């Protein structure tokens, strides 16, 4: 299936100085799947995500999105192609309201040339209405953000901020959604909400989701495919059930098997 992969990572390496964060990482994400990227802390998951956005530039290898090489594309151009993301440590426009944050996710689809504001009437106005409806119906309603839409983001509790960040990414109407630890720091109830949203989103939208997550129950429940990383390499790649029992994965998470075998 190399040709129909929405995202293809080809032999990507990344080093900071002499430190190798990623070495020869290759895998593919199939369209309309939920694909999980897991691995112990420091395995290089977030570094890899940052390469997809071109926040980091890989020292070697290629990243292709819908067949197109995006390795050297500027971050804002990559976003325009249809890749949206959330961040591990919530990166919102803290001084702005929930609605403004979400609207900023939508700005890619709105003609915001310096003259667009002048030519507001007519076509631009109909466009504006369409975008507003999109935000209302498909982002705010779906994520249940109605009550807090006019509140300043910086003052909201953590779980809600995560939801707003997801909303901003959704407003971009992306083809590929990258979620970096969407449920970290959430309690059980919030986690269940978020899992339901992610499943809803996949159901309602034509979107592919690549998520980094530590919560194994979430990963095993919702993923179609799981890629496991350790020390900057891929150590396993397959359906959740297969990966779960992969000896290499068990070692990465639980340490060398020697001692366990001795006690068994």
């Amino acid at each position, binding site marked *: 299936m190399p040709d129909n992969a929405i995202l293809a990572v080809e032999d990507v390496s990344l080093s900071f100085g002499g430190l190798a964060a990623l070495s020869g990482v290759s895998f593919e994400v199939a369209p309309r799947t939920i694909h999980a990227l897991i691995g112990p802390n420091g395995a290089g998951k977030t570094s890899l995500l940052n390469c997809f*956005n071109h*926040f980091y530039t890989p020292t070697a290898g290629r990243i292709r999105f819908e067949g197109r090489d995006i390795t050297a594309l*500027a*971050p*804002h*151009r990559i*976003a*325009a192609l249809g890749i*949206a*993301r959330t*961040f591990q440590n919530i*990166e*919102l*426009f*803290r*001084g*702005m309201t929930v609605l*403004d944050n979400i*609207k*900023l*996710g939508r*700005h*890619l689809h*709105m*003609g*915001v*040339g*310096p003259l*667009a*504001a002048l030519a507001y009437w007519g076509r631009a106005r109909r466009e504006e209405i369409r975008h507003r409806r999109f935000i209302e119906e498909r982002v705010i309603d779906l994520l249940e953000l109605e009550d807090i839409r006019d509140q300043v983001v910086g003052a909201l509790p953590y779980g809600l901020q995560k939801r707003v960040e997801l909303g*901003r*990414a959704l407003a*971009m109407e992306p083809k590929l959604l990258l979620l970096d630890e969407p449920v970290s720091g959430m309690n059980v109830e919030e986690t269940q909400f978020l899992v339901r949203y992610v499943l809803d989103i996949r159901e309602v939208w034509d979107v592919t989701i690549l998520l980094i997550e530590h919560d194994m129950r979430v990963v095993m429940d919702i993923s179609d495919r799981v890629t496991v990383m350790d020390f900057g390499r891929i150590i396993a790649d397959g359906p959740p059930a297969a990966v779960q029992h992969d000896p290499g994965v068990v070692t990465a998470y639980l340490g060398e098997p020697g001692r366990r075998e001795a006690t068994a």
Partner: protein
Amino acid sequence: MRFFLQLLVTGVALGSIYALIALGFVLIYKSTRIINFAQGELVLIGAFTAFAFLSQAGLPPALALPLTIVVAVVLGFTVERLLLRPMLGEPVIAVIMVTLGLAGILKGSARAIWGSVNRPFPDIFPALSLTLFGVGIPGPFLWGCLIAGVCLVAFTLFFRFSGWGVMMRAAANHQAAALSVGIDVRRVFALSWAIAAAVAALGGVLLGAINVIDMNLGAIGLKVFPVVILGGLDSIPGAILGGLIIGVLENLSGGFIEPWVGGGVKAVAPFVALLLILLIRPYGLFGTREIERL
């Protein structure tokens, strides 16, 4: 009373020009977190460019003024492209030193081109006078106040409502997040510098119309500093109010205190006010109050 009103009104006019210049300063700080120490020199270059077009090339004001703004915008883009963009991602203090260097270069160039004599500005605005509460306001002050006021309102609306304005606010707020939603942050930065240079040049022209211009015009940058600190470094309404306060304060202290204690009070008063206000509100009148959660 008449004297007081006279000082007050001209103070407001001067203050609105300060506010206009301060706007450029706030803009750059807001979007890039850089304190631009060359803002005064941008005023200097703008004023002398206008002088060159008006007096040296003999162009009519209707042509000379737009040309001056175009030159300023090009200068802003060039400075950003050549000096600031390579510094992207470097420590803020290093970038601030670059703006200090830029100030030196601009000032030196202006001196080399135009020499250090006073230059009178020709009359660029149609005669206009207004009598308010029995006080006659001279034309140049009136024009200065009017033009600065219109620009300030236009920019405030631009930031609040236009797509570019919202993008500029977003880039200022969080760069990585702005990039991730597809905002071209480098273009936003370039635009900030271009606008900052344009308002500086316009400020220079308005000041030139009120007074003669000379090489010390760059010192306006230091006067704008209390204006923006007073208003809060990142607030546009703050810059406007700060500008008005400093303009009025300067004029009143020059008119009422200076005759009693001798020269210099006019120059010192803004900084005294600055110190007092910072003691009470360290983040300025409208600045963002940084709250750190531990």
